[in-house]
């Protein structure tokens, strides 16, 4: 669905990507993690065609995003971190936005706004930032665009809305859709994403499915110092040492995304070698 080959991008003299390769397949929800300034938003904006690669090639849904062809624009929806909705009633805005998306479904939109408990009467600017974001997410999902790009979608959402977000996104994914969610709130996407992508130093430092992660790595709590010494990553917790170990005996464990993220940043080579 999305193929990125040898992507180079820089802001003036500051290089962001130096030969990034990535493939995104339909039917998956990808979580894109990385430190501040590693280029998560820049990657999304390259895929959306807001930025043009300095070198390399991006193919999204069979289009070159930088050409900004209407047929491509109608097939993806980008939910930016920061946005501004017009000062008109919600129903009126949807009335004028929907015809641009051939697969827009009004009933779905109503369903999502109900799920998010968004007040549908009144002007868009009367809504809080979090509510406006939920409006945008509802529209994004109701367009039925095969590719959804979301930049920090949980920023500004309250605790209940975050769990609603996970529920709604999980219900919206199907075999033809691909959702790429960029965030630094790793915990917000737990139990939602099925692929983890970590950006570091202009390249993809880690890109694996949750299934493979669970197969290959073992997340456990332990008080055993010998076990801690073998760990790829460890950190102290109230319940003991939280360890990330190679899953040599095919044990079951629940991947801890935050721990995995920190482990990849610290010990990426060793971890990736286990997946080879």
């Amino acid at each position: 669905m999305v193929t990125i080959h040898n992507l180079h991008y820089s802001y003036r003299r500051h290089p962001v990507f130096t030969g990034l390769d990535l493939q995104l397949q339909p039917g998956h929800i990808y979580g894109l993690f990385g430190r501040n300034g590693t280029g998560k938003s820049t990657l999304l904006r390259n895929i959306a065609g807001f930025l043009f690669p300095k070198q390399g090639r991006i193919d999204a849904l069979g289009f070159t995003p930088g050409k900004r062809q209407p047929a491509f624009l109608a097939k993806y929806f980008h939910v930016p971190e920061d946005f501004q909705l017009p000062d008109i009633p919600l129903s009126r805005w949807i009335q004028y936005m929907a015809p641009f998306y051939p697969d827009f479904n009004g009933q779905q939109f109503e369903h999502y706004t109900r799920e998010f408990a968004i007040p549908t009467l009144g002007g868009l600017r009367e809504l809080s930032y979090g509510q406006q974001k939920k409006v945008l997410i509802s529209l994004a999902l109701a367009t039925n665009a095969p590719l959804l790009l979301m930049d920090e979608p949980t920023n500004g959402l309250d605790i209940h809305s975050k769990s609603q977000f996970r529920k709604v996104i999980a219900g919206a994914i199907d075999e033809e859709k691909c959702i790429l969610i960029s965030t630094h709130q790793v915990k917000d996407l737990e139990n939602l994403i099925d692929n983890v992508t970590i950006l570091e130093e202009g390249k993809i430092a880690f890109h694996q499915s949750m299934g493979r992660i669970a197969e290959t790595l073992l997340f456990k709590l332990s008080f055993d110092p010998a076990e801690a010494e073998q760990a790829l990553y460890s950190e102290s917790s109230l319940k003991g040492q939280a360890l990330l170990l190679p899953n040599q005996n095919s044990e079951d464990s629940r991947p801890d995304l935050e721990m995995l993220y920190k482990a990849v940043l610290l010990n990426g080579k060793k971890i990736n070698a286990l997946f080879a």
Partner: protein
Amino acid sequence: MTTAPTNQLFSFSRWRLLVAKHWAEHSRRYLLSLLAIAGLYAAWFAFMIAIDAYAPMAANMQFSAYIVGLYSVGCLYASTLFSELSTKKDALPWLSLPASQLEKLLCSLFFGVILFYISFTLVFYCVDYIMVQWSNNITYRHPRFFPGTQIRILPVTLYNLFSAEGAPVPEKDYHLFTSLYFAIQAAFLLGSVYFTRYSVIKTAIAVLLFVLGFVVLQRVIIYPLLPKGWSNDFLSWSKPLYDTGPPGDEVRLPAGLAGGLTLLGQFGLPLFFWFVTYLRLKEKEV
């Protein structure tokens, strides 16, 4: 489910959707702005009627009020047409809206050039007509004479944009100011895409620099090339009439060429600026 148009460069149905969306989002602001323009014109004309006892609504005054308003409001509005592109939070939804850059440009031109020009002119005439009637009413009821004469001040007529009767010579002969407006406004439109911040100021400076360059070109290059005492009128060169000389002291470009260059200046410049705006829109990165 609707069927998407296949043409990726221009589709009338997509453009119509853009126009409808633009109107839905901006109509209230536009109508309020037109009311404000009407109010400003009414206040200005009322002020002129109050302070000028002789010809407060003379054709040249109507003309200058129209032109000053058209240039200032038109250029200011043009520089906001692509203001979405100056901030990321507005630019991303604008760029990702499923329509081509040409359709987006043509939508802006429809509102910023055609609809603005028509509605501005209509608003001007609505106020102008009322104020001319009011001024003439005063002239009828309180007949006045020019100072030291028995010449009665006559009622004024509504300024005619097409005949430009009463306007300065370049306007009357070539509609210079009215047609130049479209070129200047197109430059401000380009400026709104080209400059991310302070586009009005930066474009105004660029236009002024261009005019300054043109004046310098006239003074430094064209004038020294002309025989002594000759004047330069852009497309013709002659000895001024008060200079005694044979009547043949004038050089003109062939009428067809002069007409063609005038048309190019009047209509080619806006087209050129719109085309460059289109290219800038296509390569705009946010």
